[in-house]
């Protein structure tokens, strides 16, 4: 389905891709039910004619606080180095300034960039503004942001409150843009509009595509590769240098100019299709920048295929083959030394969707057993609709099935039953809120704040070493495991089915 950059709001993931947030079964079944395979779920009936593919979704009455799209806008648009993010909201939404400042500062330090505070301005809507509207305050905040920081772009994040009172953010932005001479970009990310936060990535990318990316580039940079990522360490520069390619990291910690030049690049890649699906597909559709359609760069199979496709798209096949051969030779003995130490261990992956597909593959490469995984949502298809990007299918075909594959919107109460089902020795997480529960059960967690940690050939070695290190933490976790009580009722803790409430509700 085509991406529509004419409208100001992005279409939500559920509209575009049929995204779900509740599912439980074998990974192979989910891959089957997803649109890359057939596009219809037997029990839901045909979804032909519907915009997005349908997968049966489990929905229960009990839910714990999740995450919203606006937070994803904060962690993307808010980390553009020479821009400012204006949050059009009451002060509570501004709380995110704290976490993303910490991540931003540490990310800058990891990349060797000058460390500085993030630049977020909240319009600080009050009760009165709920009645009379907040447009005037938005205007003031945008102008203040400009006067204070002289940014090269100003992003506006909308909020639940500004959405409900119906503020005309578009007109304010247009007027300010005309006066200030820099892009002023509304990002429509009201928390209630999409059931999954990943729509917030798309909202940011939509705004960047509409108002920052150079429309009719006069030059082509044949060796420039857009790398859609977050704040992770710079592993792409040395890797792509082997192919004679340069890296253009977007969106986090990029400059506005680096975002603008995306249309001049030779190709687009990302470390995770969940994050990159919208931007990469739109760059291809509207600017002719091909996106690399291959398995993600995890494990030998994924990394080989990914490098070969990137090389094919950029005409560098010979260089790639040489690099692949050297890396295999370098890494294989390292892995051979790691595998015996890891054999027999059970791992559990609880991360974002496509990223989890990659992590499970890496664990299997390391001879770690994986019987279960939790992903926070599932996209039955990515925006390219190209089966070469079927990351879940790739996992199942290359590494075999995952018996207990669960889709859940970061629900800690279910996580207990999920862990009981597979009893892992450690878990891999991104996103907060789950590791503390695992810890209280005596299970240590590897939190992957640096999203590039397990990427590529070296990533397998990195993750193997991290597992060995975190297993030592078991001493700590097992010490507290016997001493804490969980806030869940005994009857719930005894429940074997994490979706018992949902199934009751649908009967």
């Amino acid at each position, binding site marked *: 389905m085509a991406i529509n950059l004419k409208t100001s709001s992005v279409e939500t993931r559920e509209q575009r891709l049929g995204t779900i947030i509740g599912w439980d079964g074998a990974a192979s079944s989910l891959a089957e039910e997803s649109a890359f395979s057939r596009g219809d779920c037997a029990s839901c009936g045909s979804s032909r004619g519907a915009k997005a593919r349908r997968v049966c979704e489990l929905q229960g009455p009990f*839910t714990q*606080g999740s995450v919203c799209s606006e937070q994803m806008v904060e962690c993307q648009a808010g980390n553009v180095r020479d821009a400012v993010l204006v949050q059009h909201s009451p002060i509570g939404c501004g*709380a995110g300034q*704290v976490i993303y400042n910490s991540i931003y500062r540490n990310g800058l330090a990891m990349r060797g960039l000058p460390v500085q505070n993030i630049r977020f301005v909240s319009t600080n809507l*009050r009760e009165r503004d709920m009645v009379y509207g907040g447009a005037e305050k938005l205007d003031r905040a945008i102008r203040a942001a400009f006067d204070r920081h002289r940014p090269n772009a100003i992003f506006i994040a909308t909020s639940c409150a500004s959405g*409900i009172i119906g503020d005309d953010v578009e007109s304010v932005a247009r007027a300010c843009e005309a006066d200030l001479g820099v892009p002023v970009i509304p990002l429509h990310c009201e928390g209630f509009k999409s059931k999954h936060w990943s729509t917030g990535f798309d909202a940011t990318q939509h705004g960047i595509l509409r108002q920052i990316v150079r429309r009719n580039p006069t030059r082509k940079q044949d060796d420039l590769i857009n790398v859609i990522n977050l704040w992770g360490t710079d592993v792409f520069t040395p890797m792509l240098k082997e192919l004679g390619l340069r890296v253009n990291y977007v969106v986090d910690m990029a400059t506005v100019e680096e975002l603008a030049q995306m249309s001049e690049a030779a190709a687009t890649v990302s470390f995770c299709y969940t994050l990159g699906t919208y931007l990469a597909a739109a760059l291809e559709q509207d600017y002719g920048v091909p996106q690399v359609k291959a398995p993600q760069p995890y494990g030998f199979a994924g990394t080989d295929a990914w490098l070969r496709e990137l090389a094919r798209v950029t005409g560098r096949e010979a260089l790639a083959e040489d690099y692949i051969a050297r890396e295999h030779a370098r890494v294989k003995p390292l892995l051979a030394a790691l595998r015996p130490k890891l054999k027999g261990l059970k791992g559990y992956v609880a991360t974002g969707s496509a990223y989890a597909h990659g992590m499970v593959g890496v664990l299997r490469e390391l001879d770690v057993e994986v019987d279960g995984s939790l992903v926070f949502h599932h996209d039955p298809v990515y925006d390219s609709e190209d089966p070469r990007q079927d990351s879940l299918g790739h996992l199942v075909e290359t590494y075999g099935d995952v018996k207990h594959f669960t889709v859940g919107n970061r629900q800690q109460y279910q996580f207990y039953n999920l862990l009981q089902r597979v009893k892992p020795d450690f878990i891999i997480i991104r996103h907060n809120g789950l590791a503390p529960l695992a810890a209280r059960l005596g299970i240590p967690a590897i939190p992957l704040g640096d999203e590039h940690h397990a990427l590529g050939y070296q990533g397998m070695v990195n993750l193997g070493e991290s597992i060995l290190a975190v297993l030592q933490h078991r001493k700590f976790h097992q010490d507290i495991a016997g001493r804490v009580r969980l*806030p869940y009722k005994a009857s719930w803790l005894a429940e074997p089915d994490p979706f018992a409430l949902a199934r009751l509700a649908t009967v």
Partner: protein
Amino acid sequence: MAILALKQRSADLAPEPDSSGPIELVRYICAIGALQSAAAIPRVVPITHCGPGCTDKAYMNVAFYNGFQGTGWGGGPVTPSTNASQREVIFGGADRLRELIESTLTVLDGDLFVVLTGCIPDLVGDDVGSVVRDFQKRGVPIVYAETGGFRGNNFTGHEAVVQAIIEQHLGPDAGERKAGLVNLWSLLPYQNTFWRGDLEEIKRLLEGIGLKVNVLFGPDSAGISEWRDIPRAAFNLVLSPWLGLSTAKLLEKRYGQPWLHIPVVPIGARQSTAFLREVAAFAGLPSAPVEDFIAREEARYYNYIDGFTDFYSEYWWGLPAKFAVIGDSAYNLALTKFLVTQLGLIPARQIVTEDPPDEHREAIRAQFRAIDHDVSVEVEFDEDSFVIHDKIRSTDFGQKPPIIFGTTWERDLVKELKGTLVEVGFPASYEVVLSRSYVGYRGALALLERIYTTVVSRSA
């Protein structure tokens, strides 16, 4: 999308446009942040009726990236939430809330549930009260507070939660008073990075002079049974510039309980001793045991201070002379008092950042003006970090590098000023805080260690 129905609020809507402007780098959050106040009471579970991100924002930022405190029994990721969607915005969310509460009772183990609302239900006009009252009628221990983001900040949200528990969960009858029992209303849990250790120290001091303390929040509280004991207390102690005053007044009205207001949270021997004497006099305690306790505490305190004197008088490489404090009124006042009266440091700028209600500002100003017999401070009220940083930049700190008591937001600024930063408030993202306390006799020693370790470790 058009506004549905803003709930009728009688007289409290400002008739004139308010002067509130943009805020950069927040120092407090919205009222729903008080979900962590509910979670600060052992075995109490907050339930939030709001958009999908509000809960995460409140706890990740205030409880995690602020000293990495942990979230408590029912707070943080345990917190049930409606994660309100388009459907609840268009059709109202009362049914969804009812369903969530019902299922919460089957999943979570709690002594009391506190429903907090966010922007969405408060804007679309959900009748949260009637949903919760239905459960109350069934005997479910549950209360609700309206804490929509635009209604106020996490300080006023905290008061709303406290008052909801008092009004909706405690009986109207005071019953027998317990002599020597006091309810303590002090620092804002989680927002204040050191609240747990601080409450523990304050409780220790009050018990030291012979009182029993309903500390109400934190690991030293017995939880809801202690809250049910609130009406039994002989009096309420409000130990903060303004937070807790409205609660004390409510309790006076409801149960005829007297209250004592001490605006300065004590740090160091002079303040702690004065504090204990004032409380003892109000409570009518016999003076001999009080003075005994004070004597023992002071002896220990000054023993350590005696050791510190060598350092303070003889350290070769210079110590800061002037300081600024950027923080909530409670800690700002407490620190300024301690640094001026006990260490003899010179206050260069004091900025109060939690947007205290207008009616309390004059009293806060008066406290700062009377910091010491020879020192008067003109305090400023600001919430926007851009403005705050500009003020600090233009402050005359003299020849020596200044010491700034502030937050993570000041890290860049302090580098620019070549000064020293001690992170003492929200957000303190580069501090790990377990039981550390900066108040009382013991906390003051920890604070001195912190200040001068920071100064000394930067010197080479």
